[in-house]
């Protein structure tokens, strides 16, 4: 096909200014914000380790890893919802509920550990499906639907665990207690979940469709994407992730108790946002989300390690969140500006991709 481009009349020089290494680095950072977060984690860790050398010790690293596993898995599930333009406020309450339910199933009802885990995860997925159905079939706002669970599940789990249910099974406790080559099982679970989530989002058609639903729901629908099924899927994923974290928390505190994880939904949301997931939907990557969770965990545990008062810890975490969103906003403004420049250039340059790119 060799139809002439009709509206190209003049040649405009392409903008190929020679770029210094510094400006190239800046462009890279603007294009992939995740690198900045990862760098921030490393810097924060190095600072804390320099002040308190115990912070980099093996035992402390294992603790850090176990804390990270909980936050990051929750944040991964949460980020799926946020990418579709939704939100899941229930993840903290559900984590607490499944912490209690898993202990109850295993200890009180005597269900074998493996089946306990499977049942709890399936239950988490089903609860997520319930959210998804209300959101898609009744058109309810995700915020409200998951707010219901946030409140309801908190009550349910307090009712179930009036007294903590101590866990004795060594297999159950091994989720956090055992290590493979020094790495706690929970951290391995995190790595597996993060890799699967990354693959699903960036290397499968499902992931692309999920991004599309968040980018422009109506356009996605008219392009033949089953929007309702994709939305239901993300809430199922988030519910199942909450269940996994519930099991990890139960194993970590060696009992099913109700008040172990209050406020975790907000940490999950904060980790996603710090990691570059846009609350408008359609954008965000798993590596950023995990790095965002890591930054929060390093700050939290690090400030404890250098004996900073708990009040200041929250203030620091809040400031980091603010910094992250402001930097992200500046980045987007910058990107839009450069986008505009491209638009002005495009109509008058006769760069036909078929010609310039045909390899």
């Amino acid at each position, binding site marked *: 096909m060799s139809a002439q481009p009709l509206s190209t009349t003049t040649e405009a020089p392409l903008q190929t200014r020679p770029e210094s290494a510094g400006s190239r680095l800046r462009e890279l950072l603007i294009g992939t914000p995740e690198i900045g977060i990862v760098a921030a984690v490393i810097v924060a860790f190095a600072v804390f380790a320099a002040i308190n050398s115990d912070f980099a010790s093996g035992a402390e690293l294992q603790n850090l890893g176990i804390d990270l596993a909980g936050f990051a898995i929750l944040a991964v599930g949460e980020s799926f919802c946020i990418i579709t333009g939704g939100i899941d406020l229930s993840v903290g309450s559900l984590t607490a509920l499944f912490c209690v339910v898993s202990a109850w199933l295993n200890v009180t009802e005597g269900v074998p550990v493996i089946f306990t885990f499977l049942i709890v995860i399936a239950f988490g997925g089903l609860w997520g499906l319930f959210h998804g159905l209300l959101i898609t079939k009744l058109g309810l706002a995700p915020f409200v639907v998951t707010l219901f669970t946030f409140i309801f599940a908190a009550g349910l789990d307090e009712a179930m665990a009036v007294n903590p249910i101590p866990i004795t099974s060594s297999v159950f406790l091994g989720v956090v207690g055992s290590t493979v080559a020094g790495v706690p099982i929970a951290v391995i679970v995190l790595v597996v979940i993060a890799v699967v989530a990354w693959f699903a989002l960036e290397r499968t058609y499902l992931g692309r469709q999920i991004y599309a639903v968040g980018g422009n729901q109506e*356009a996605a629908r*008219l392009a033949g994407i089953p929007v309702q099924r994709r939305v239901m899927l993300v809430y199922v994923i988030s519910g199942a992730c909450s269940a996994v974290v519930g099991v990890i928390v139960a194993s970590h505190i060696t009992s099913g108790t109700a008040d172990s994880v209050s406020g975790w939904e907000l940490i999950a949301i904060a980790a996603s946002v710090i990691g570059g997931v846009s609350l408008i939907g359609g954008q965000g990557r798993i590596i950023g989300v995990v790095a965002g969770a890591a930054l929060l965990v390093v700050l939290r545990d690090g400030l404890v390690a250098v004996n900073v008062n708990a009040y200041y810890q929250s203030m620091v975490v809040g400031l980091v969140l603010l910094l992250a969103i402001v930097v992200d906003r500046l980045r987007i403004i910058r990107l839009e500006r450069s986008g*505009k420049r491209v638009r002005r250039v495009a109509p008058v340059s006769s760069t*036909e991709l078929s010609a310039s790119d045909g390899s």
Partner: protein
Amino acid sequence: MLAEPASPIVADAGGDLVLTGVRKTYGPVVVLDVPELAFRRGQVVALVGENGAGKSTMMGVISGSVTPDEGTITVAGDSLGAGTHHAQEHGVMMVSQEFPLVGQLSVAENLLLGRRPSERRFLVDWRAMESTARGMLERVGLDVPVRRKVDALSVAQRQLIEIAKALGRGPRVLILDEPTSALGPAESERVLQIARECAAAGGIVIFVGHRLNEVRQVADRIVVLRNGRLVADMTPQEATEQRIVFEMVGRDLSGEGAIQSPQADAPVTLELRGLTAEGLGPLDLAVSAGEVVGVAGLMGSGRSRLLHVLMGAIPCTGGEMLLGGKRYRPRDTADAVLSGVALIPEDRKRQGLLVDSSIRWNGTLAVLRRISLRGIVLTPRGDRTKSREVVASARVRCQSTEQSARSLSGGNQQRLIFGRWMAANPDLLLLDEPTRGVDVGAKAEIYHLIDEQRRQGMAILVASSELEELLSICHRVVVMRDGSITATFDRSEFSKERIIAAAAVDRVAS
């Protein structure tokens, strides 16, 4: 009370609008370079040019949203400063294509946004507000309840509200940016009349349009921009459509768009028997492979609705649909795509594009599953290869498939969506306003794409508010009114008057 003046529409004091030495560049690219241009009172001046020719920049410079690098703009001798606020104080009102309406507010609230309709200081006087709003709507001939939320209105209705809003502020300079692109013939006629009235009352009207017949009909003067420069300044007598197009694109396009008739024995692709859906039908219609059938009708006649029902985006409630001889009843759009149906919707930005995503993501959106390994794994290479094919087949002009869809011009965005569906290779292609808001050159290319698809045996159904478009590209035109087909015209019987009559019977605009 602020009584609504019946006439004149335009604030009386005023003078010419003069641009002197106005220049605007983005990087190395000069997007506007106008040594001198004067708009006289009492004239409708049409501003035409392709996308990227500098029309938007010129409108932006006049309305204050774009600050020129050099030059001055004066209204009645007063120099305009930067910012839209200053321009508005001087009576420069712009009706843009992107409606800055607040969807959650009512029609009346939108019309009077930023104004107070009565003397009361703190409380909103709803009654005064609504009666003022009704007066404003009457002037543009729009009949919608003023309490309705703007979200619930169609694109065409929003367009008329935008116009009413600008008129309500008594403009000295009224800029209309493709005001009729969303409208059917009767509403368009009304808008042209408003433009004339506004000029007759001593205002300056700048009319930006892509429909050349309208431009010739409404304008006292036709100014053509190309690559940011003034290339022609004509009277309507001098400005034949051919001449305008020639000035716009810099060469002759006549002869393009001629169509061949489909093969007589082509199989029927789509057949509707007594199809009904909410606000639609019962309808009977058949479209053959390689045939282009147009759907004409006023706004609200059910044109778009019909296409959305066929796409599975609106459920059908009765009757029968046959696709390639097989029963077809899509549960959702995914079903429709699997059955070989594709829809290019009317509103690119709201219904078509992921504007902030790359061209690559947009191009492969409808074929993700097909290009995935084992139907699941989307490889970067497969994705890239396919998106390049899409860009090449639809002749999207871009620097890289990684740039955002937002960065493309309107015509290129539309071609990108065409490419998305050409990759899916559907049997039935549904087009809703396929050339809305694209310029003449891009239009010709889109007609060319439609013709290519037709030749490959696709059945094509085109809904359009632009009659000339339907008459030039369709083999057959059906006319809809109140959700039903009222008339069918074969190519040999094509006549604008008869189609308009069939569309508007007992609905003549009051």
